[in-house]
Structures are given as structure tokens and as C-alpha cells.
């Protein structure tokens, strides 16, 4: 019974949220949700679509042509050339795109390499597909970059893909172009797919240059599947809409799975996505500025807790992943799992009523860390750190 699901876990982040909800005055820095409401221009685009009566029917399986056209134009601005008719699919959030991609490209028993710590759901989707996640640790000393030799060592005849997140959740770090090109060489040499989850690519704070993507290199377009989501960039997590793109030979296969899973992305949300691409550029710039302020605030507050935490300054996304360097806490009698980061997180919740995510949830190298989300307002961030300072006195 339940062969397929027995090894799946509900996300630790959601478990933390559930646990936190039992405390009356909790401040949650656990969930990776933007504090903002969806920009009003997007909402009005949705209202217009509703009024025009164009949202009640299915769209084509890959999505509304108008939206895919806009996506093609947007991608071309970023030096990525994909045919909206055959190479772009609008998905129900990027997680559906990830699931459809993995189901399409793998056979059960395949291995998928994931650099970690990384987004918790990758492991679950890989297991759901009957495949094995193979973790390759990132190097915290080198700002959470990856070491290609480690990848090469992890590759076996069963390896099908390397699946990474850039910018990375939970570390907020960005892989350099050189690193990614090295990964591409490896993929060519061993005939692997590269799955690039870029849902945080719009939040790069003060950094001027754009984040490089392997999807920009035409020679490897038959290997690279790139995913994006409207959830984070446009504060639209509830709309469930994102997209993926790759060479038509791959997208044709992913489309079959996408059709089985959802028929098409919610049409009303596809209109919202059009609104986002048509007129929310300014909002993204505004959000980016706010996250920069929050990043600086969180870092300043962490600097005051140097005896407890060390951290790599995030360059992107809205997470920081501090390492807990003080080890001799008296946790008392907590019913936490046998992991230090779990016990720390549970203890912090009980003592300070501040919810964070235990680092081990993001992979073995995440142990001894916690993830703090600064998707929340500056007010909440300050209150949470005031409480932490009190208990760490």
C-alpha cells in the first residue's frame, strides 16, 4: 500500500508553520512568501478579463497564445530564444512544471543530482517519480558555490539530470557564469539534462548585471529546461502560475504530462500573468528595493548576534541561511527529532515565539543552520530579532 507515497514527507516548512500556529503571538520568518499584495495593475487586468467573460473555459494546454508570446518577447530581452508555439509551457506554479519535467525525462530508478542545501520539495518530487535524489554539498566557505569534482564523482550510469536552483533557496546565493559553464561541460560529457529553477532571478538587490542562465546558450538548448514562476517576482503565490521552456523536442514530451496533471494552468491566473508582464515592471523594481532594505536590516541584526550565528551575505532571493556556531544550548526536554537544527528551531519557537526553518530540511549540509525569510515586513523582522536578542543575552 502507498508504495509511491510512503517515503514522501510534507514539507518541513509547512510543519513548522503548523507548529507555530499553536503559539498565540508567534512571528514567522519561516515561510517563503512575499509580504506584499499582488500589484493593483495585475488585479485590474484580472477584473477586466472576468468582465469580458474570457476566463471560464480551458485554454490550450500549453497556455494562452497571447501570454506565451509575451513570454517569448521577455525571454528574448534576456538573450534566450524560444518559440512560443512549441517551446514554452505555462504551468500551474513552477512546482507543477518541475513535476511534469521530471516525470517526462526520467525512468524510475534514475538518479537526479541536486546541489544542497536547496529547496525542500525537489527531494519529494524526485521520490514521487520513483527516482533517487543524490545530494552534493555546496561549499559554505566559498559562499555556497559548487565544486565540480564533487558532481563528477556523484555521476553514475543511472544519473539523468542535475537539478539546481539559481539564485539558491535557502542560501540566497548566485552561481557564477563560470561555474554554470563548468556544469554544462559536465552535462555534455555525461549526457545529462540540466534543470534550472530560476524563480528568484528578479531579486538581485543592488547588483547591476543580470543573472546568467544556461538557457542562453543555444548549443545546449536540448539539455536545459528552465523554470520561472510569477509567485515570487510579482507577489502572486496564490495564483499558481509559472512557465518553463526548452527545446521543442523536450517540451513536446513535458506537455503530455502537463496535460495529464492540470489540462492547462488556471486561465484567470494566466490573465494575471499577462498583466504582470505587461505592466508590473515597476512593481518588481519596488519589491527589489524593499527586499534590499530588509536584507540589510537582517544582516545588521545578525551582526549583533555574532556569538550565535555566522552567515554568508545573501545576494538574492529573500532568505539568509545563518550557521549556528554556539552549540551549548540547554534545550531542556524537547520532543524534537535528533537533529541539532530541528531542536534549535523548536526551542526558538518555544522560548521566543519566532518561527524559522531548521536547516537540515534543505539537505544534509544544511544541518547546524536555520533559514530566515525576510519576505516579512521590517517591523516583523525587528520584533523577531528583539526577541532573539533577549534570549541570547
Amino acid at each position, binding site marked *: 500500500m502507498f508504495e509511491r507515497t510512503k517515503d514522501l514527507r510534507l514539507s518541513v516548512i509547512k510543519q513548522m508553520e503548523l507548529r507555530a500556529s499553536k503559539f498565540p503571538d508567534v512571528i514567522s520568518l519561516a515561510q517563503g512568501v512575499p509580504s506584499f499584495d499582488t500589484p493593483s495593475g495585475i488585479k485590474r*487586468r484580472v477584473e477586466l478579463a472576468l468582465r469580458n*467573460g*474570457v476566463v471560464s473555459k480551458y485554454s490550450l494546454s500549453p497556455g494562452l497564445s497571447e501570454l506565451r508570446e*509575451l513570454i517569448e518577447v521577455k525571454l528574448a530581452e534576456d538573450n534566450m530564444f524560444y518559440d512560443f*508555439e512549441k517551446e514554452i509551457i505555462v504551468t500551474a506554479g513552477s512546482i507543477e512544471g518541475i513535476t511534469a519535467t521530471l516525470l517526462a525525462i526520467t525512468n524510475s530508478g534514475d538518479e537526479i543530482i541536486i546541489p544542497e542545501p536547496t529547496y525542500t520539495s525537489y527531494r519529494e518530487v524526485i521520490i514521487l517519480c520513483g527516482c533517487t535524489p543524490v545530494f552534493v554539498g555546496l561549499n559554505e566557505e566559498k559562499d555556497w558555490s559548487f565544486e565540480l569534482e564533487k558532481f563528477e564523482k556523484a555521476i553514475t550510469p543511472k544519473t539523468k539530470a542535475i537539478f539546481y536552483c539559481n539564485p539558491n533557496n535557502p542560501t540566497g546565493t548566485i552561481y557564477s557564469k563560470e561555474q554554470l559553464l563548468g556544469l554544462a561541460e559536465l552535462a555534455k560529457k555525461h549526457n545529462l539534462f540540466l534543470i534550472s529553477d530560476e524563480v528568484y532571478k528578479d531579486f538581485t538587490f543592488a547588483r547591476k548585471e543580470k543573472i546568467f542562465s544556461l538557457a542562453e546558450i543555444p548549443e545546449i538548448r536540448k539539455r536545459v529546461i528552465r523554470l520561472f514562476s510569477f509567485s515570487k517576482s510579482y507577489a502572486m503565490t496564490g495564483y499558481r502560475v509559472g512557465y518553463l521552456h526548452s527545446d*521543442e523536442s523536450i517540451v513536446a514530451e513535458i506537455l503530455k504530462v502537463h496535460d495529464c496533471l492540470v489540462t492547462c494552468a488556471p486561465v484567470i491566473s494566466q490573465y494575471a500573468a499577462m498583466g504582470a508582464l*505587461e*505592466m508590473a515592471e*515597476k512593481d518588481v523594481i519596488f519589491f527589489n528595493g524593499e527586499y534590499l532594505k530588509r536584507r540589510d536590516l537582517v544582516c545588521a541584526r545578525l551582526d549583533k548576534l555574532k556569538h550565535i550565528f555566522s552567515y554568508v551575505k545573501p545576494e538574492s532571493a529573500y532568505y539568509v541561511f545563518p550557521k549556528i556556531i554556539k552549540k551549548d544550548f540547554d534545550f531542556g526536554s524537547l520532543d524534537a527529532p535528533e537533529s541539532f537544527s530541528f531542536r534549535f528551531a523548536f526551542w526558538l519557537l518555544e522560548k521566543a515565539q519566532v518561527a524559522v526553518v531548521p536547516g537540515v530540511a534543505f539537505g544534509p549540509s544544511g544541518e547546524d543552520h536555520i533559514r530566515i525569510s525576510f519576505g516579512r515586513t521590517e517591523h516583523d523582522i525587528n520584533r523577531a530579532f528583539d526577541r532573539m536578542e533577549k534570549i541570547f543575552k
Partner: protein
Amino acid sequence: MTKIVLAIHRPTIVAISGSSNKTFIRDEIRKILEEKGKTVRANPKNFNTEIGLPLAILNIKSGYNSYRAWLPIIFQAFFAIFQKNFPEYLVLELGVSQKGDMKHLLSIVRPKISIISEINQRYVESFSGMDNLFLEYQYLARCTRKDSGALILNYDNARVRKLSKKTHARVEFFGKTNASGIFQIKRIEKEEKGQKFWLKHNNKIQEFFMPSFGEHNVYASVAGKVFENVI
């Protein structure tokens, strides 16, 4: 307001219309004009609805955006009349989603050159059938200037082809169909880094390469070449 601005500055108006491929053609035309050193203004993104068009002409960002209210826009519009560097060309996507849309749009602008690539089922939902939709484009064909104006049409689409009968302006065709006198796409080949295509016109065949993929991009590029030929 928009009409006054147009009357004062008298830019050459290029209209891009049809059920699909407007955005790609618009970008192509803009690129061509800019390469020729002309000053151009095109409507932003796909925002070509009723409110979008006047704002595009006035070069004002839409009040849809949450950080701008409508009031300042009205003031901006007032100052737009005095814009010093008003462009020589306006490249505008004219989208129709309801009956009467084209009439409304053409009450604001009078195109010198109109390019229509497709008329298909895409927006047909809000029309009581293809014939009504056709009437919208027919109106554009009729209103395109006949003195030195031109209508550039996709020969492959039977409905678009039929528009040639509804205009007083000069007509140029492009497409894959083997017909005499048209700009004919002979072959498209997908390669690793993009696509190649061969274009035949007046018994001369030329080869082109582009870094993007998909037939619609070839059509957009060819529409641009016809446009270059016309101006």
C-alpha cells in the same frame, strides 16, 4: 488630447494588426526604422487596448500601474502637446477584442502603412463569428492612406488575402504560397543556433539567418523586409 498631439506633430503611423504575431512584427519594424536613424515610438509590450493606444502616442505610462495614479497622467498628457522630440514614426499594434474596436482606434490614428499577418479563431469568442471579425480588419484596410500608403498582407491566410480587395492603397504580399509577385518564403531550416530561411522576390533568392526560433519569427522578419521595400 491625443488627436491634438497627432495633428501638431504629424508622425508617420505604421499599424500592425491581426489575430497574432503583432508584437514580433512591431519589434521588427521598430528595429528597421531605428537602424535607418529614424526616431520611433512603439506601443509598450502588448498593451494595446483602448486606454493603451492614446497613452502610447503620448508616451505616458499607464495608470494601471499601482504606483501612479490617473491624475498626474492627465497633467502629463497636457504637457505632451509641447514635447520637443516627438518621433517621426509611431509603430502601433492595433488589437481588436470587441466589435467597433477598430473604428474607435482609427478615430484616433490614421495609418500610412498597415501590416496584417493573421486572422484566425483566436479572439473570436467576443465576436459573433469570423465575418464580424473580418469587418474590423476590412475597416483598417479601407482607412489605410492611399496616397503613398501601403497595405502589407500575409498571402497564406485566405482572409487576410481577401483584404487586398478592400483597400485603395498599394498592396504587397508575403508568405509561403507559390504566387507571383509576392515576397515568398521558400524554405525554413532549424539549426542549433537559430533558423535560416530563403526569401524569393522578383526572381531573386536571398538567404537569411536569425537567432530566434519558430515560424512566426520568420514571418515577422519577412514582413519587415517588405516594409523596408515599401518605404
